[in-house]
């Protein structure tokens, strides 16, 4: 009995992996045959980043059950630490994929550290308060990075923290051959774009392995126990704060890795890109995909990210159509009549397949 359930879980996990792999194969085949135009293939890496963002935010919002409105902040930390890593190691590590991997790792670690520091005060709060504090955190990160001026030369990294706006990149006093990496409010400029679709695919797979295996482990069950009933979780010996922190930091570090990939996909990237709207955008992906539903997050991200681009032809009306689609999705996914209908279809289908199985 229990074994059956276990196999069902394993099967749904495998289906998610298989779906992502098949999608990757199809898209890279199309790409190599030149079936995708320039703007279409330009969307691939950002989609990968947002999928990772959505899946990781689902860990905080869906699995842990805490509403976080500052997820873009972690992406930002990852993006700029990743860009600094990749740019400053350009001469040391000539191989672009190796630099990209290292940048994503550094991005993940930096975001995890920031996530831990933010988590100490934030995870003492609940509900609306937690949402407000994470929102504030996202804005603070954005402002802090706007103050950063970073350059690299043969002597190493030069960092200026430009609080009152009086300094410029010239104050870095770089030696000849030095490069400016982050230029205050302009953000990262002149970044060598080394992000690839394959790297995005690998990152998605790693994220899926981490999140799905975490959910099916004792730690994941503990995290969901905290979500469902905090007092009961406490009473069966689960240290609540530890597991909240575990989910929050894991989520932050995955967002950091996605951020690093995102940052290395653009030659110019300002910190203002990772604002409240980005956090909300990712939250919309998660909520419409279904809280706690990993596969749903992926689908919702792909559809809702492509939609505004696909509607470019409609110019003025595209945001209107986007809004209508959002409302329709909200109504249909929460509609009890439709849910019952789908459930009845599903049970009918499974009965049929059982009958076939018993007949054969």
């Amino acid at each position, binding site marked *: *009995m229990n074994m059956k359930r276990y196999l069902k879980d394993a099967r749904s996990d495998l289906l998610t992996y298989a779906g992502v792999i098949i999608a990757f194969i199809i898209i890279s085949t199309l790409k190599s045959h030149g079936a995708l135009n320039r703007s279409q293939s330009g969307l691939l890496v950002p989609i990968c980043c947002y999928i990772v963002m959505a899946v990781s935010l689902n860990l905080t919002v869906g699995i842990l059950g805490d509403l976080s409105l500052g997820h873009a902040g972690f992406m930002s930390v990852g993006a700029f630490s990743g860009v600094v890593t990749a740019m400053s190691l350009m001469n040391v590590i000539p191989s672009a994929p190796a630099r990209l991997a290292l940048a994503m790792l550094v991005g993940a670690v930096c975001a995890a550290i920031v996530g831990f520091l933010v988590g100490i005060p934030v995870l003492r709060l609940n509900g609306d308060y937690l949402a407000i504090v994470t929102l504030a955190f996202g804005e603070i990160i954005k402002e802090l990075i706007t103050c950063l001026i970073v350059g690299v030369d043969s002597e190493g990294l030069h960092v200026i923290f430009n609080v009152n706006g009086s300094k410029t990149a010239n104050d870095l006093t770089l030696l000849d051959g030095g490069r400016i990496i982050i230029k205050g409010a302009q953000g990262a400029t002149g970044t060598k774009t080394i992000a690839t679709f394959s790297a995005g695919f690998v990152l998605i797979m790693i994220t899926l392995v981490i999140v799905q295996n975490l959910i099916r482990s004792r730690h994941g069950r503990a995290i969901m126990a905290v979500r469902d009933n905090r007092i009961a979780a406490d009473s069966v*010996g*689960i240290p609540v704060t530890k597991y909240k922190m575990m989910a929050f930091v894991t989520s932050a570090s995955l967002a950091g890795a996605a951020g690093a990939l995102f940052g290395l996909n653009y030659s110019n990237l300002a910190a203002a890109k990772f604002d409240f709207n980005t956090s909300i955008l990712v939250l919309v992906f998660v909520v419409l995909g279904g809280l706690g539903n990993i596969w749903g997050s992926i689908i919702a991200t792909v559809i809702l990210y492509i939609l505004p681009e696909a509607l470019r032809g409609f110019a003025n009306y595209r945001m209107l159509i986007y809004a209508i689609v959002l409302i329709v999705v909200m109504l249909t996914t929460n509609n009890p009549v439709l849910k019952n209908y789908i459930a009845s279809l599903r049970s009918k289908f499974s009965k049929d397949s059982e009958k076939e199985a018993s007949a054969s």
Partner: protein
Amino acid sequence: MSDSKKRRPGLESVSPVVPVQTTYYVPERDVDKSPILQCINLGISFGGLKAVEDFNLTLGRTEIAGLIGPNGAGKTTIFNLLTKVYQPTHGTILLDGKDTANMSTAQVNRAGIARTFQNIRLFHNQTVADNVLIGLHNEMDYGMLGGILRLPGYWRAEKIARQRAMEYLALFHLDQHADELAGSLPYGAQRRLEIARALATNPSLLLLDEPAAGMNPSETAELMENIVKIRDTFHIAILLIEHDMSLVMNICEGIAVLNFGRLIAKGNADAIRNDPTVVEAYLGRKGAKES
């Protein structure tokens, strides 16, 4: 703590609970009276209100004891003190001779106290089996990385835990519902599941908060047998709060009566039944009307 955990007999030797008798009488000699729990002058005040005052109780290692009293007497507050949901403002709690001061709720559970709740607190959105698996959380030892990478330790621990979870469920006739959502179980089954989950944490003291609330007489009779059976198979102490006097009088070797946060009587069923202060607490003073 680890010693007491090892003393527990293997679960494979445990047979499912079957209704055999309607009342259980435990011979006095079988009851190990060496204390597992000692409360010394335990008390808590909320602001100026003394919710519990000078509560003294000693509970034997395999004793079943009842905590009764009128509504608002402070019974659940005592459970909350024992499990550190509230930190006591004075007094000491010794669990197996060890002071539990400065422990958190989770730490107290790992030290050996498990509980159920008056208003059932299950993980409603998870399956019945997962509820017990969450109870077995601290019985598994693989780390986060082991879980993510699915190292051999993960498979080993999960396999054992799943078997044990099914054994706990079988004890409470819940094994055929293992894959259902806990929230979809009928009321009585939810109560049983809560006890199964509490037992899965491997306690040496089980606190049951109104286990028979909302049950009909036949369910209550089955519950009584289960409680005694739990004590006999797991060799643990059980402290229960209950308003159903037939249950309390039949299975509790010791009964403590609480009124307005104070202990007003302690003793066996007969002594409590005939104690004038207890009768007064429940029914009011005799002759108060006449005078």
